[in-house]
C-alpha cells in the first residue's frame, strides 16, 4: 500500500520537476545580459512579447479559449502605467507594474463572463470586440491618452529608487527579464497545481469535468483573469521601458501577432510563447534588414509553411510515437494486453 502511494505522489509531482533543458534555457536567458549588451533593446521587446504570449498560452493552451483580444489587457495596463507615472500617482515602477496588472485583471474578470458561452468563433469575436471598443475609447478620450500622438511626458522613476532606466536599455532589459521569469514561475506553478489539472480536464472534456465536480465556469473565469493580469504586466512593462504609450498597444495587430507567436512556438507547454517570441522578433529583425519594406511578406510565408507542415501537431507526433513504443512493448512482453487505440470521445461543451 505505502510504496504505491509514494509512487503515485512521486509520479504526480514528477511532472512539475524542472528538467535540465529548462534550467539551461533560463541560464542562457540570463546570460544574454552579459553576452549581448548591444542587443538589449530588441531583447527587451522580446521578453515583453514572450510574457504577453505566455498570457495567451495560459488560456489557449491550458483552457482552450481562443482569443483575439489580449491587446485589451495589454493596452489598458500600458496606459495605466503611463498615466500613474506621468501624474506621479505611483512613483515606484514595481508597485505601478503590479497595480497595472491588477487593473487589467479586473477588466479580465468582468469580460470573462462574455467568453464563457459559445464556441471558438464566438469567443474570437467577443474578445476582438472588447479590444476594439477599448481602442476606440482611448482614441475618443485623447485628452487623457494623448490620442494618435501617444502619451507624452512620461517619466519613469528608478526601480526601488535605485536602478535608473538608461538609454541603452540595460536596466530595462534586466528588469523585464526578471519580471518575465517571476511571472513564468507563477504560471508554471499554476499549470502543475490541482487547479491546472482541472483546467486540462475542462479543455479535454468539459462535460466530464463538470461530472467529477469541477465548477467549469469559475475555473474559466479564474484563468481568464490570471491571463489578463499577465497580459497587463506585459503592457505596463512596455510603457515603463519605453516611457511611452500609444494607441497601437490596443490594436488588432498586437493580438493577431500574439497568435502568430504562439503558433510559431506551440501551445500548452508554457515555453511556446517564449520560444515563439524569440523566433518572431529575430526573424522580423533579420528580414527587416534584408528587405525593410516587405518584411511582412516573409513572415506571412513562414507562417503558411509552418501551419502546412503542422507545427501544432508535434504533440500529436509524440503521441503516435508513444503508441508505437507501447505496441512494441506489448509485443515484446506477451503477458501485457495489446494496446489498440480505443475510441475516446471528447466533446466541447
Amino acid at each position, binding site marked *: 500500500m505505502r510504496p504505491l502511494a509514494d509512487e503515485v505522489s512521486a509520479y504526480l*509531482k514528477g511532472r512539475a520537476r524542472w528538467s535540465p533543458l529548462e534550467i539551461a534555457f533560463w541560464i542562457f536567458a540570463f546570460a544574454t545580459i552579459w553576452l549581448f549588451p548591444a542587443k538589449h533593446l530588441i531583447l527587451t521587446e522580446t521578453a515583453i512579447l514572450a510574457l504577453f504570449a505566455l498570457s495567451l498560452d495560459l488560456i489557449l493552451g491550458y483552457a482552450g479559449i481562443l482569443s483575439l483580444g489580449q491587446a485589451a489587457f495589454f493596452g489598458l495596463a500600458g496606459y495605466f502605467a503611463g498615466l500613474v507615472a506621468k501624474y506621479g500617482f505611483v512613483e515606484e515602477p514595481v508597485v505601478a507594474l503590479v497595480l497595472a496588472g491588477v487593473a487589467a485583471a479586473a477588466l479580465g474578470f468582468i469580460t470573462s463572463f462574455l467568453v464563457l458561452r459559445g464556441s471558438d468563433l464566438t469567443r474570437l469575436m467577443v474578445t476582438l470586440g472588447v479590444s476594439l471598443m477599448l481602442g476606440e475609447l482611448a482614441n475618443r478620450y485623447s485628452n487623457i491618452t494623448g490620442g494618435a500622438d501617444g502619451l507624452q511626458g512620461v517619466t519613469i522613476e528608478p526601480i526601488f529608487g535605485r536602478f535608473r532606466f538608461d538609454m541603452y536599455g540595460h536596466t530595462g532589459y534586466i528588469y523585464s527579464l526578471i519580471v518575465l521569469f517571476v511571472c513564468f514561475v507563477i504560471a508554471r506553478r499554476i499549470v502543475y*497545481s*490541482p487547479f491546472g*489539472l*482541472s483546467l486540462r480536464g475542462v479543455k479535454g472534456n468539459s462535460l*466530464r469535468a463538470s461530472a467529477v*465536480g469541477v465548477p467549469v465556469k469559475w475555473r474559466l473565469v479564474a484563468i481568464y483573469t490570471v491571463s489578463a493580469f499577465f497580459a497587463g504586466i506585459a503592457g505596463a512593462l512596455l510603457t515603463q521601458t519605453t516611457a511611452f504609450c500609444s494607441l497601437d498597444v490596443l490594436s488588432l495587430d498586437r493580438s493577431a501577432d500574439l497568435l502568430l507567436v504562439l503558433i510559431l512556438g506551440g501551445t500548452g507547454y508554457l515555453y511556446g510563447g517564449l520560444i515563439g517570441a524569440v523566433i518572431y522578433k529575430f526573424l522580423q529583425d533579420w528580414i527587416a534588414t534584408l528587405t525593410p519594406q516587405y518584411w511582412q511578406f516573409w513572415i506571412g510565408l513562414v507562417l503558411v509553411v509552418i501551419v502546412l507542415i503542422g507545427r501544432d501537431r508535434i504533440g500529436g507526433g509524440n503521441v503516435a510515437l508513444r*503508441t508505437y513504443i507501447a505496441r512494441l512493448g506489448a509485443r515484446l512482453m506477451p503477458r*501485457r494486453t495489446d494496446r489498440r487505440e480505443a475510441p475516446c470521445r471528447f*466533446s466541447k461543451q
Partner: protein
Amino acid sequence: MPILETIGLEKRFGGIVAAQNVSLTIEKGARHALIGPNGAGKTTVINLLTGVLKPTAGTIMLDGRDITALDPHQRVRLGMARTFQINQLFPDLTPLEHIGLAVSERLGSGGDWWRLVGSKSAVTGEIVEIVERFRLADVMHERTAILPYGKQRLLEIAVAFACRPHVLLLDEPAAGVPEAERHDLLATIAALPAEVTVLLIEHDMDLVFSFADRISVLVNGSLFVDGAPEEVARDPRVKAVYLGEEADA
C-alpha cells in the same frame, strides 16, 4: 426515506417529449435498474438527474433536498456521480490524473493553484485506494486514449467512484466491452460497497436481472412498470413492449 426521488419530471425538446411525468423513487442502498427500449428516454432521465439538462417541469430530490436548479458539479458535491454510455474521458490525461482530479475536487482542493498535484497525502491516499479497487495500477501512467476499451470502461466507473457518491448512476457500463474483459467489469460492479445506491441503465438483461433488486421500465419517455425483478419479468405488458421487441431485434 428515498435517497433519490423525481416528481413529475418532464423534458421537451421543442415539440418532442423526451420524458413525461417520470416519478421515480430510489431507496437508499438499492440496486435499481432503469430499462427500456432504444429511444425510451433513459439517457434523458440520467441527464436530467445529473443536471446536464434542465427539466421543463418537475422536481428532483436528493436525500430530501431539492436539487432541480443545481449545476452538475454542485450535484456531484452533494453525492451523486455518473458514468457515461459513451466514454467521456480526458484523452490526454493518465488514469492517475483522472482519479486525482476527481479526488482533489471532492476534498475541496481542486482550485488550489499554489500546491503541486500529488503533494497532499489525503489526496494520494484516496487515489491509491481507487487505483487498487479498480485494478488500474498496471496502466495508471498510460495516456488514456491508448488504453484497451475494457480498461477505459473501468476507468469510467473509477472516476465516478472517486467522487465518493452516495448515489452512483451507471449508464450502460458494459456496453461494447469485449467478452474477455467483461468479467472483470461485472465483478467490479458487483463489488461496489453496499452503502452506495446504484441506478443502473442497461440493455443486457442478464446483467439487469442478476444485479438489480428493483427495476423500472421506461417506454416513450414515461414510466411503464416499476417493481421487483420477478414482477417485472412476469408482467405481460413488459414482455410485449420491451422484451418482445428485444427478441424481434
